[in-house]
């Protein structure tokens, strides 16, 4: 576990966002198993440290474009659990007002969040454009975005990093390498397992980080964000982790070797940070249990409110196509 200068208060914040994400996820999975879901949804289990650690490294004016396993980032940046459950359940109160599905379409420019689109890997060039707008206006702001290992095979990965390098854009790209793209293991996606290796050819910094270590993720992201803010250009960060459940709610992921999952289970990012916090005397199990309890209440309440909220009025179906 790396150590960087975080206050204990900050550490508890990091933990809270992780446990909130975990509790959200477990409740969401349960909801779908009970047949109360609408459409599909993506489990976030295993990705908590990346989405939370990275988002925590941003200032409020920075812009983030999360991907489909970055629930933690949405929560941390201020989208309430109720609005997210509303989205998942197609409610008018959902972030996209019932227009987009699961964790897609959850943009909110008031919160400096760019919504995700199914088509991989469009968050990258769009975030590059966001970063370019900061250069354009001489603002000391940074854009942060994410892609999966799978998304890194798409041409946009190359186009974006190349242009970001030439333009010296204040952009940070994090690859969440969770070993699989849906059912396809890494070795069928790429020959070299280190996606960060690409950075060298763009002449930009490339960093590999333990994606299950929230403080490590925070530290490398923070460094990249500050470099970008100071005119140092883009950084490519590869966070290694494991997708602990199926690709989406319907997927049992029988194709993943059970030993592999067991090995990663031992490195569970939430449990690991919990142990770290206790062993270093930063907090104790009681306080952590209280946080979990708080998260449970928040999520249970959000689900109840979201489920009770109405579907969109069909008469509004044509609204909002144009600005």
């Amino acid at each position, binding site marked *: 576990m790396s150590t960087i200068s975080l206050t204990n208060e900050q550490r508890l914040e990091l933990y809270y966002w992780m446990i909130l994400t975990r509790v959200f996820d477990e409740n969401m999975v349960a909801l779908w198993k009970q047949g109360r879901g609408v459409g599909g949804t993506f489990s976030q289990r295993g990705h908590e440290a990346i989405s939370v650690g990275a988002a925590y490294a941003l200032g409020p004016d920075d812009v983030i474009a999360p991907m489909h396993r970055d629930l933690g980032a949405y929560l941390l940046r201020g989208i309430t659990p109720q609005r997210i459950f509303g989205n998942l359940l197609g409610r008018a109160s959902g972030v996209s007002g019932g227009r987009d599905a699961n964790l*897609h379409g959850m943009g909110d420019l008031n919160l400096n969040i760019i919504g995700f689109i199914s088509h991989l890997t469009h968050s990258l060039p769009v975030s590059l454009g966001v970063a370019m707008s900061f250069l354009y206006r001489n603002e000391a702001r940074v854009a942060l975005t994410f892609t999966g290992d799978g998304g890194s095979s798409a041409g946009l990965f190359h186009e974006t990093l190349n242009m970001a390098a030439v333009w010296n854009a204040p952009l940070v790209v994090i690859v969440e390498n969770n070993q699989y793209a*849906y059912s396809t293991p890494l070795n069928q996606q790429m020959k070299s397992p280190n996606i960060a290796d690409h950075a060298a050819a763009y002449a930009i910094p490339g960093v590999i980080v333990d994606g299950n270590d929230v403080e490590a993720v925070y530290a490398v992201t923070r460094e990249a964000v500050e470099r970008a803010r100071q005119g140092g250009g883009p950084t490519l960060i590869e966070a290694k982790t494991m997708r602990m459940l199926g690709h989406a709610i319907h997927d049992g992921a029988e*194709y993943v070797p059970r030993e592999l999952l067991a090995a990663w289970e031992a490195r569970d990012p939430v449990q690991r940070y919990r142990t770290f916090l206790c062993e270093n005397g930063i907090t104790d199990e009681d306080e952590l249990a209280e946080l979990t309890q708080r998260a449970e209440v928040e999520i249970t309440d959000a689900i109840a409110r979201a489920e009770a909220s109405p579907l969109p009025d069909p008469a509004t179906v044509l609204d909002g196509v144009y600005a």
Partner: protein
Amino acid sequence: MSTASNFGFSDIETTVDAGRELTYIAAISEALREEMRRNPNVLVMGEDVAGEFGGAFKVTKGFEAEFGARRVINTPIAELGFVGAATGMALMGLRPVIEMQFADFISTAFDSIVQFAATTHYRWNGAVPWVIRAPADGGIRSGPFHSQNPEAWFVHTPGLKVVAPATPADAKGLLLAAIRDDNPVIYFESKPLYRALKGYVPPGDYVTPIGQAHVARAGNDLSIITYGAMLHQALAAAERLASAGIMAEVLDLRTLKPLDTAAILATARKTGKVLIVHAANKLAGVGAEVAALIAEEAFEWLDAPVQRIGGLDTPVPFSPSLEDAYRPNAEKIYVAARALAAF
């Protein structure tokens, strides 16, 4: 036909009863497996098609075990590139069947399709006999990027062929025809029919010729021209219309490019009243071409305005209340047809 929401992820039945009643998706899988057995040049490629997994919808489950990794290729997420690669294979005489994970992602491969594959034979006689299987259509609460019906883009593009089976038998017959065709063919499969629709599928080598529409129900009072999942909504509407004494003819286009203009004009001239229905955006959709064709070449036979029902000019919304407002169905068809009959 129901719009069951478990449209896609369970395994496909592999034991076929004597009556050969197969689901729509089982018919696709059977056609593909049988053609791979017959023709060593046929291969499948796409995201997650290999291994025990066998594709997002399990169409190719067990294929790698039977045909080997050489003929069942998992691709990285690189639609533009892997369709381009399929074009190279096809130029060398192989017959790749490419699975798009969802039809919505076909736009990612757009240039490879509309610029390279579609033009190559016209430009330098390079035949490109691939097929793209594109799991299309909505009504299943899958939102704007897992519900699209993008066929109009390709019907407008010279050099392609486009098919859209509506029944298990045609799912098999058109897939075999598509694979054997020497041109790039886009095969739009209907996700809402996958496991919800069962029907008789002829055994063995059964081909539905490309370019031939099918009169799914005969009638004299008006014509409903449609394709894909909407065929079943149209048939349901026609049934209700019949109870009201209105005899609708239902034409299943089956092939969208080249259109069966003879069949379209025949039904238009026969009934003089035409309602065109598809799930895709009505605006500048395939139905516009059908309507324009009729307005051009069957004008003197027409007794009423040519009507169209299609999706709205919005992305496909996710929420059930909005998607139901977005999407044509038997009720909307019935209402429009009654008005048309009364014209």
